[in-house]
């Protein structure tokens, strides 16, 4: 019974379309949520949606790279990165990011509707030259929109950790765009994830520095044992 569903591409495509809607909902949450713990949960859910989309797309296309991407995303973005940020977040005891630059949540939600339309118009101008199925075109639009909405998060939030989540959202958008538009070699995906990890590591460590006086900062880094450049 299940296998007959899985073998039916139309059904799978519908599932992916529903997942697209979920992705946009998570992006809207990222723009408006003030609580950092729930922001992290939203990010983990968003990454999990990426995993699911990659798996369903594999079932349609049969491209094995997609499975590898799904596995990599699961380990790095659903598990490791949220865990790490959570650890740092507990150390610096910021639970809420109340301040918004330039845009309040309602305004940024309106702006992001504009961004989605922009992505649609822009891509439909260019993709007439590519032979791309409807689903793939939709994936590209959602991917680009997600990237732009992540950028909006980076601009409109104050705290470093929320900015980092904005960056991570952008990266999820690029990943989505990538799996629907091109079959990039897997090695490149691995390199991007490594880059992502180093970036998250550095910015969150710097977030500790911003949150404390300098003497405290060194002490905290010693206890975290991340930045121990002690000469021994």
């Amino acid at each position: 019974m299940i296998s007959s569903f899985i073998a039916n591409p139309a059904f799978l495509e519908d599932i992916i379309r529903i997942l697209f809607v979920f992705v946009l909902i998570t992006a809207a949450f990222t723009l408006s949520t003030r609580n950092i713990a729930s922001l992290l949960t939203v990010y983990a859910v968003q990454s999990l949606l990426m995993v699911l989309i990659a798996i369903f797309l594999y079932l349609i296309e049969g491209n094995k790279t997609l499975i590898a991407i799904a596995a990599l995303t699961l380990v790095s973005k659903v598990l490791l990165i949220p865990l790490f940020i959570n650890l740092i977040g507990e150390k610096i005891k910021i639970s809420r990011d109340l301040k918004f630059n330039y845009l309040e949540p309602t305004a940024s939600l309106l702006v992001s509707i504009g961004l989605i339309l922009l992505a649609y118009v822009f891509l439909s101008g260019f993709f007439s030259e590519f032979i791309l199925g409807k689903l793939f075109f939709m994936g590209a639009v959602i991917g680009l929109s997600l990237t732009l909405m992540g950028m909006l998060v980076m601009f409109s939030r104050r705290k470093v950790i929320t900015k980092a989540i904005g960056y991570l959202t952008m990266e999820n958008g690029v990943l989505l765009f990538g799996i629907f538009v091109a079959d990039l070699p897997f090695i490149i995906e691995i390199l991007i994830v490594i880059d992502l990890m180093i970036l998250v590591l550095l910015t969150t460590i710097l977030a500790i520095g911003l949150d404390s006086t300098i003497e405290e900062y060194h002490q905290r880094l010693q206890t975290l044992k991340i930045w121990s450049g002690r000469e021994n």
Partner: protein
Amino acid sequence: MIILGYLAMGAIALALIALSKSHRTMNAFFILHTLAFLAIGVYVLLTTAVPIFETGSEYFYVDHLSLYEVLIAALLFFLASVYANGYVESLVQAQELHRNNLKIFYMIFSILLTTVTLAFFSDNLALFWIFAELTTIFSAALVAILSAKENIDAAIKYIFIASGAMLFSFIGLIFLYTLSGEVLGSGTLNWIILAKNAALLSPKILTASFIFLFIGFAAKSGIFPFHTWLPDAHSKAPSAVSAILSGVLLNIGIYGILRMYAIVRQTQAEPMVSKFLLGFGLLTVAVAVLNMLLQKNLKMLIAFSSVEHMGILLLGIGIGTPLALFWTLFYILAHSLTKASLFFSAGILHRQYESNLIQDIKDVFSLQPIAGWGFVIGTFAIVGMPPFPIFSAKFFILLEAFGFSKSLVFAVLLLLVIASAAFARFLIEAFTQSSKDEGTDGMEALLPYTVRGGMKFPILSILFVILALGVFFPEPLEKLLNTIVYELGYM
């Protein structure tokens, strides 16, 4: 073999720095690292027939352009490492840099050199993208190492703006990959293959891809409107790092734009992309110059001047003639050297006054004659006075631009005059201030800061080299630049 040589040297240097116990040995190993990279570069340039592929695959590619950039980078790292010996020790004694962080500082500095080198040698554009990203992260760590709040702020701004913009570049790469897949059967991001088959690529999508790639590379090289991180990061970083940020890291973005333009110019997309570059170049120069005019902070002034020069490099690329490219390439070298000497002098002045602000600088020539004169001569060089090399480079780029648009040339000339005025104003105001004029309002006379060993050598040697380059254009350099112009397909 070449890449493996670099990698092995980089790894050995990193390990040695990690094992060293004193500042002196860490610095010595770092200097050796830079010298080794310089030596490999010179050796390859003299003995090996380039362009060649590297490490048995098509991921790395050594041609004259990448060698030229790598040599500039290694030279600047060498000068910065010599300068760092005394400068960083001063920072430690002033308790601005924690002694525990010394090892981290040198290790990241050393990794940065290796990463920059690998970025320039990457043939695969995705690989180039990754290495360019990593250079942002490592250099931001060097900005933040002083662990003052303003440094951390500057580093965070730098990371988010540059890396965020680089994600748009990646979308550009995806476009390019799909585009090449449609034409060549299987997608590729190898520059050499793309350049060879450029004529087949659809101009419309190539333009879109170029614009996306441009966003990231422009942010990396401080082009308007993505330049906002640059003045903060470059002015807050320790001066040895500032010199590298301005002299080497900005070149990475320009290098990316140059490589992409070499592909685009073979297609119908060229007129549009060229206008696009000229427009952004002009805007960048204008914004930078207006920020320089009333600048009160010495290092901010130098940082905005970097933005200005990146704008001119963009103009040089956008003009797109072989001669313009030749002088743009020469400009990269001249700017990197001159800018480094300015930051090195500014570093000494900052140690002396513990401030970069115009009102705190007094009695420069009696307290710090070398840094003072170094800065004055460096200023003449950076605004493009003859006989310094930036003069001839600017002159010929603008001469080529004349055939393109006369009003563009006049606009740029006007902006350059304002830039010179900004430097002149700063010099006259800051360097003529004397503590005697203010009377004795309870202030004790400043004691001269003892410039430590190694800090004067980079300034003096750069001034010597740029003077020499200004009056005498060495033939091997001319040959090298001509080869690069040829290899990029301009002739």
